[in-house]
């Protein structure tokens, strides 16, 4: 957790304008790589079983055996944070990926063909945008029942119009280029033009948006789990741990603080990565 202490100072340093985007990507990538490693290797790293209850260690303070202390049921907070991170990252990243996989073709079609194809796709997706994100997620879960898969699905649906819109806009810009018209004249089919010319050149902004949205997805997942609508206990999740720790905040702050810190670090990681990528793809920027 030493990285957390360094972050504010560091972010100020790299936050100066005209700094190379490489710093952001490096910093964000490093944070995320570390977190991903911890999440993947959870069974190897976790010092204890995250779900084993120990009545003798209820709200135990941090010590060498339990570096982050233990919670209301005497479960090891460190192990629960590691497993919780795994669950949260899995839900948020897969949700954004699922959203991206649907949004890219939709945005491409809308931006490239325009007219009624665009109106149909854009207006349909606008319907989703009408509802606030949290309300939509809660409604989804109210209908389909709580759980991490449903939470991921809800998050994917919420971000679909945002990603599709970004993809549509960059497609509109790319499709104006002469090499797109030229490719048609050189005998390429619409599909071939879309796949070989338009998609690769229009993809950048969507990747940036996906990276930034991953940060929001993580928070949304934590929020849903906090409300008991996401990952279900006893499976640990960062949001669920926040809910557990809330009641014992004064006696045992470690139950609340550590999962909270991990959320902050992960969100920062995604944000830095997104910012770095944005600077590379920003048409006004000098890039590398």
């Amino acid at each position, binding site marked *: 957790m030493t990285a957390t202490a360094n972050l504010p100072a560091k972010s100020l340093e790299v936050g100066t304008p005209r700094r190379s985007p490489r710093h952001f990507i490096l910093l964000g990538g490093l944070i995320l790589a570390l977190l991903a490693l911890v999440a993947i290797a959870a069974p190897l790293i976790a010092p204890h079983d995250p779900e084993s209850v120990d009545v003798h260690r209820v709200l135990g303070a941090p010590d060498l055996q339990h570096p982050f202390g233990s919670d209301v049921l005497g479960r090891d907070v460190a192990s629960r944070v590691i497993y919780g991170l795994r669950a949260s990252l899995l839900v948020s990243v897969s949700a954004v990926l699922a959203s991206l996989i649907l949004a890219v073709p939709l945005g491409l079609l809308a931006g490239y063909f325009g007219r009624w194809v665009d109106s149909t796709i854009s207006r349909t997706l606008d319907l989703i945008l009408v509802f606030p994100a949290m309300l939509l997620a809660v409604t989804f879960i109210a209908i389909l029942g709580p759980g991490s898969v449903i939470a991921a699905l809800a998050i994917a649906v919420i971000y679909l119009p945002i990603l599709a819109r970004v993809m549509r806009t960059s497609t509109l810009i790319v499709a104006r*280029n002469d090499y797109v018209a030229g*490719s048609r004249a050189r*005998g390429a089919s619409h599909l071939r033009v879309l796949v070989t010319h338009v998609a690769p050149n229009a993809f950048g902004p969507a990747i940036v948006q996906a990276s930034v949205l991953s940060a929001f997805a993580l928070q949304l997942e934590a929020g849903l789990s906090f409300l008991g609508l996401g990952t279900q206990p006893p499976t640990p999740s960062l949001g669920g741990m926040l809910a557990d720790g809330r009641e014992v905040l004064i006696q045992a702050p470690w139950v609340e603080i550590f999962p909270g810190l991990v959320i902050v670090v992960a969100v920062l990681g995604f944000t830095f990565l997104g910012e770095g990528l944005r600077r590379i793809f920003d048409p006004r920027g000098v890039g590398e």
Partner: protein
Amino acid sequence: MADLLRVEHLRKSYTSGRPWGRKPPPALNDVSVSVARGRTLGLVGESGSGKSTLGRCILGLTRPDSGAVIFDGVEVQALSGRALADFRRRVQPVFQDPFGSLDPRWSAGRSVRESLDCFGIGAPADRERRVLDLFDRVGLNPALAGRLPTHLSGGQRQRVGIAAALASEPELIIADEPVSALDMSVQAQILNLLMDLQKDLGVASVFISHDLGVVEHVSDEIAVMYRGEIVETGDTETVMTSPRHDYTRTLLAAIPRPRSSAPRRPPCPQPT
């Protein structure tokens, strides 16, 4: 002699996107031109006069509201499938912007190769060699085939664009402002290249430009466009020396020329 390309009473207007407000004037208003085999038609006019729209209609990239584009006796709008592919192979574009006409992610060689792959010209193994031949043909070092467009100069990019257009051995080239984005010395090189190629290969072309001076240099015939209409057509010689329409005269007057009749500047007084 039968014309290779005939454009008959073409009309096209773009919607302004708003149901209220003034309707924009049509981009093409009853435009008719023709090009014979191996000849060059220069299309002149100011920005927004509809010349590029005409070019896109001829290429079959934009659908006109009414009228017909007839290439080698066949109406282009009616084509589909193999016949459309065959038409596309025979009519190729050269674009203005040397940045926008090449995919920034594709090497120069791949851009030239695109039409060979799409039209299935030659054996796949043979295409690489054809690409290098084309580079040679347009005066480019074949070693540049692996470069990305960002690592080529404007003139080199335009040569790549011309090579890509020539790859499918077209009979008609639609060159839309092919030299406007280049500086003067490079303009001359590219114009000479285009004229040489035309002489060697017998390709007909429609040469679109706002610069009457450039068009005069390359064209057999000239059509002057103004606000979506052809206001004057004729042999280059005739149009340049005895223009009939006021707009053509205005364009002619805009060509910078050394004025031999202008009074010489008095010599600088020499210090005594």
